[in-house]
């Protein structure tokens, strides 16, 4: 639902510039055009999955319970994905989110933290998780913006280091979350919908608002579009980059809290490989990996597509290896679909045949 204008590659599709950027090429001006069309492709991909689910598993698939299962599963990776949508929109990358999430669960479920929480309020755990996520993001941001270390490497280093730290702190044991209030809150339903899903919805709405309606979002898109021009126009680029990585870290902290609620445990193995899943969801959703265009709506759809996919697989009792094979194919097809729709929309709007 992003209003981001698009793009570069789009108007002027270089023959294969897309080996860097998603081949997308809609200028898509507003909801009704480009990014809407892009989302349309995703919605169709999602609908196709749902159709497959319906055909193969019948009504069971559309049962409220099953839909909630899909949503609950999507919610944690979804919150992380929304965090990195900002980083990617600004042209950066954050590989450390999964690992940082693991670290936040470990620290927030340490005996001492839980003791403090029991003696006061469970919000202590929330605070600690956000603090840990925020600090990790801050370190990333400072190393990247002020140390000039390429984001891929800086956050890869954080991935490794945060995992190590989490193991050290937890002594490689799984820490059990006992705080009843915390668990009650996280595992509750509200209006028939689990709190986890509410959190995801809130984070998504806040993310959409932040990206599309605030100066913060505008700066993010501007930096991704042309960092140097933004700097010369007076945008405090470095500071903003730091904020962005802190934001991604905070999102990882929220996801960590959700994970603790869902699993009632904190461990260093939480969030393993989440970075790849999250980036895949963001990019399939239509955010440009080179920056300059970001869409929260697309990210949400991307996350839902992957989550539904897994659900359909399980419903159909599919062999794990075949699942992997199918997943690879579906990723490619989803991206091609999304591009096709973006392209068709452009053609319709402009009557310009697409060069390939």
């Amino acid at each position, binding site marked *: 639902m992003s209003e981001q204008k698009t793009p570069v590659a789009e108007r002027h599709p270089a023959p294969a510039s897309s080996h860097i950027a998603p081949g997308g090429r809609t200028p898509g001006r507003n909801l009704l055009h480009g990014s809407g069309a892009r989302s349309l492709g995703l919605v169709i991909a999602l609908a196709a999955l749902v159709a497959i689910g319906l055909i193969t598993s019948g009504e*069971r698939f559309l*049962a409220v*319970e*099953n839909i909630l*299962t*899909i949503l*609950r*599963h999507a919610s*944690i*990776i979804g919150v992380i994905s929304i965090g990195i949508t900002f980083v990617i929109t600004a042209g950066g990358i954050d590989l450390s989110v999964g690992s940082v999430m693991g670290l936040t669960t470990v620290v927030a479920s340490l005996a001492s933290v839980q003791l403090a929480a029991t003696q006061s309020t469970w919000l202590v755990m929330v605070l600690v998780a956000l603090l840990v996520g925020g600090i990790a993001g801050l370190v990333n941001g400072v190393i990247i913006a002020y140390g000039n270390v390429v984001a891929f490497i800086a956050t890869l280093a954080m991935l490794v280091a945060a*995992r190590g730290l989490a*193991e050290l702190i937890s*002594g*490689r*044991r*799984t*820490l*059990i979350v006992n705080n009843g209030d915390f*668990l009650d809150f996280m*595992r509750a339903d509200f209006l028939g919908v689990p709190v986890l899903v509410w959190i995801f919805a809130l984070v998504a709405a806040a993310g959409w608002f932040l990206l599309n309606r605030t100066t913060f979002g505008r700066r993010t898109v501007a930096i991704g579009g042309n960092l140097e021009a933004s700097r010369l126009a007076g945008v405090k680029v470095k500071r903003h980059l730091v904020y962005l990585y802190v934001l991604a870290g905070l999102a990882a902290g929220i996801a960590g809290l959700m*994970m603790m609620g*869902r*699993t*009632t*445990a904190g*461990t*260093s*193995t*939480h969030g*393993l*490989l*989440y970075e790849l899943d999250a980036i895949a969801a963001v990019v399939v959703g239509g955010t440009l990996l080179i920056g300059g265009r970001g869409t929260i709506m697309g990210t949400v759809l991307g996350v839902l597509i992957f*989550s539904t996919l*897994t*659900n359909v*697989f*399980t*419903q159909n*009792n*599919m*062999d*794990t290896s075949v*699942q992997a094979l199918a997943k690879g194919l579906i990723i490619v097809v989803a991206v091609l679909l999304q591009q096709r729709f973006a392209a068709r929309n452009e053609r319709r709007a402009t009557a310009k045949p697409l060069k390939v």
Partner: protein
Amino acid sequence: GDSTQPTNASVEGNTEEGETVVVGFSGPAADHGWLGAINAAATAEADQYGDIDFRVAEGTNDANLQISQVEQFINDGVDAIVLLPTDGAALTAVATKAMEAGIPVVNVDREFSSPAAARTTILGDNYGMGQSAGNYICEQMSDTPDAVVAEVAGVDSLPLTQDRSQGFADALESCGLDVDNRVAADFTVQGGEAATSQLLAAAPEIDALWNHDDDQGIGVLSAIDNAGRDEFIMVGGGGSANAMREIQSGESVLEATVIYPSTQAADGVRLARLIAQDKAMSDLVEVEVPKRIVLNAPVVTSENVEEYLPTAFES
């Protein structure tokens, strides 16, 4: 059972086809030999019974995903769930939910943090495994009081690895030895190879080496072979057929392996069927399936290898 006096009817009735039960199975990603064998054995076991409708969810190392798989089983109202959790504590809540929904859960290998989360728990003995390996090495090293002992662990961030290492260290301590060099691999062939070649370079003289996992052991042996080392004895873990053949050959540094049954999930499937069909275990007088079963961790050497080879898993 409508009888007021329950009796264990298993002896004649357990193999007989009963009403069809739906059993859901979820385990970690089959990313190494032992887990692959776990999955294969479970599926094979289910196939043996005409009255099991077996559902397997995608193997995963992500607790979040595994939880949603169990939720799906609950939604579908399966009759029993066999669960080998990526992390026992992390899956406890959802397993409890399943139990509360009236679906018996059979917990395999990695234990839940609450006893209420499973109808039955069937476990390998990780601590015991380390102990067996340690004791065997103690015996073999009885005349080398300051023997150099090395250890190639599995995935270090798993609690089970910690248990194994603890058991190993405790057993060694009892005979005055300790672990001089320790590396951790990742249960894969490549990981075993990489970690061991580093280990061998770091320790020029070793007397005994324990490797946690026989599948990674292929890599470990390969590294040993590469380095041209044979001055020590090696003990394996898990009990793969490959390792047993190696022991059988008598030419390898691998002299023994400690079994960690790869049939746990298969046993779990069988128990799940019994529970769902309200049956009991045939060799027990007890009319219900027991609450907790801990499998033994015997040591396989060239003397008893014939006995174990047929049930060993092909990794």
